[in-house]
């Protein structure tokens, strides 16, 4: 009961901070800009992709529909959303330490473990809200404006066209997996927040780790080959795999496992650190 009460408190605190709305506003603005740009000159953009196939394939019907726009938006934004997540979640513990309210919380009949777990749950709910908002704007608003249709996806194996009836479940699973990736970012920033006394440190550190791991992941150097499969950043694009044909279920399951392991380990580290943290000074 105390845990749920405190989770509710955490959500009230998140809702009261102006920075919590930056992510929602930024997504709205960015997606609106992309949709407007596509509406104005989307065919030129699409022709860059289709040009190389036009000698061998003929495209009929409306390729540029809401499903394709959603895919383009996701590709463009999913890299930047971790910053919007960390902006809020990186402050959840360190912000309390900075304000001194953590002492007030700790002198109440709630354990430190419950305090930290409430913050993780509130962070997870906030991340879910961002993901749902991203999904709503990119998929449903785009479909409303551009209509629906078959989805054309360019993968490493070539051009794949998914029939309209075969798209919905791919997006559902894709968003769920993207949510798990963003949840890992949220968990990482809350974990770093348990070590810090200010808000900026965990936010910057989270982004630094993501950039560092992404660089390692993309460098074609054999020395990193052994660790690449275990970096969470390697699996952050797992959502795209649902749009391949056939769907590489084994690779997706492996990505989900790695991301879940990361979440469990990061929560464990945060609990260990917060339970031994000197919160009295």
């Amino acid at each position, binding site marked *: 009961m105390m845990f749920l009460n405190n989770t509710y*408190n955490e959500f009230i605190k998140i809702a*009261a901070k102006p920075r919590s709305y930056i992510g929602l506003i930024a997504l709205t603005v960015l997606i609106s800009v992309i949709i407007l740009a596509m509406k104005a000159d989307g065919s030129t953009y699409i022709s860059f992709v289709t040009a190389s196939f036009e000698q061998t394939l003929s495209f009929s019907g409306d390729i540029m529909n809401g499903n394709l726009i959603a895919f383009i938006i996701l590709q463009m934004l999913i890299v930047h959303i971790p910053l919007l997540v960390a902006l809020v979640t990186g402050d959840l513990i360190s912000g309390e330490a900075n*304000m001194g309210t953590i002492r*007030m919380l700790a*002198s*109440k009949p709630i354990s430190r473990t419950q305090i930290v777990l409430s913050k993780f749950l509130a962070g997870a709910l906030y991340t879910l809200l961002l993901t749902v908002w991203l999904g709503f704007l990119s998929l449903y608003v785009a479909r409303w404006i551009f209509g629906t249709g078959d989805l054309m996806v360019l993968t490493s194996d070539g051009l794949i066209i998914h029939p309209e009836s075969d798209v919905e479940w791919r997006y559902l699973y894709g968003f769920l997996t993207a949510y798990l990736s963003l949840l890992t970012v949220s968990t990482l920033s809350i974990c770093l927040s348990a070590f810090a006394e200010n808000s900026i440190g965990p936010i910057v550190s989270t982004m630094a780790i993501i950039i560092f791991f992404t660089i390692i992941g993309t460098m074609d150097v054999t020395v990193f080959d052994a660790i690449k499969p275990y970096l969470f950043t390697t699996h952050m694009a797992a959502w795209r795999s649902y749009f391949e044909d056939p769907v590489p279920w084994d690779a997706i399951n492996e990505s989900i496992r790695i991301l879940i392991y990361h979440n469990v380990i990061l929560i464990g580290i945060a609990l260990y650190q917060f339970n031994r943290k*000197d919160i*009295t000074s």
Partner: protein
Amino acid sequence: MEPGPIIQVNSISKSFGSFQAVKDVSFHVNTGDVFGFLGPNGAGKSTTIRCLLSLIKPNTGEIKLFGETFASNRSMILSKIGSIIEKPDFYKYLSAERNLEIFARISGARVSKKQIHEMLDFVGLNGREKHRVKGFSHGMKQRLGIAQTLLHQPDVIILDEPTTGLDPQGIIEIRNLILRLKTEQNKTILLSSHQLSEIELIANRMVIINKGKTLIEGDVSELLNQQEVIIVLQVDQVEKTLSIIQDKFPNASATIITQDQIELTLQKNQTSELNRELNNADIAVSALEPKRKLEDFFIKIIGS
């Protein structure tokens, strides 16, 4: 509540690295006490209070509240305690009412909005319910802190330096609030303060600690022998005054401190008689000031 010790601190010690903040501190607080917790800066008061609130664990010794230890029943103990540790910190971006709602929700008791408003009224913050704490003065935050401690109707209130950083008006306001807690709500209060006059006015029992050790514990009236008063007299004829005191009040002890001032200790009920004798002897008394006894007592104990 049953009478008897509600807080028992038995030989606790706490070190931070090589620095020993508390060594062998013991005291007890009875139900209904207003207990003064005194000591100079660095004496170990805040460390002891943090142990009492389970914010840190003592290395050795035992703390029992309501007959239980934190190891056996932390939640029950903390649900019956309200506390302010030095300065109360709140969520600046939230209103006073919202802050109280947040702390009430994890206090272990059901607190209605009406009770929150009543509590804000009790501490003199009515009309400020919807104001963000960001704009509150230090005194207002302290009063909000006291509201926060009382919300869940705790049996014990622990106040660590509640008047730190307040202006004289703020100190008086907080002191009056504590007095009201004692008289109107009959709470057990443990009060750590540098304001010795505050302790002397409102505490019935006290402990003095220094360098992490208990120096003395007991009833304030017994320790200070409140049947006696210390008075500083300012007169125009010091020698004649001294001779009258020695003649009429043989039990009083008097010392000349300056060429027109005498400090004397005598029975409380002899003060007016002394004034009358001096008037009859045509001695002009320009000042007759009672001196705070706790200050002297504190300095004597710490010095020894």
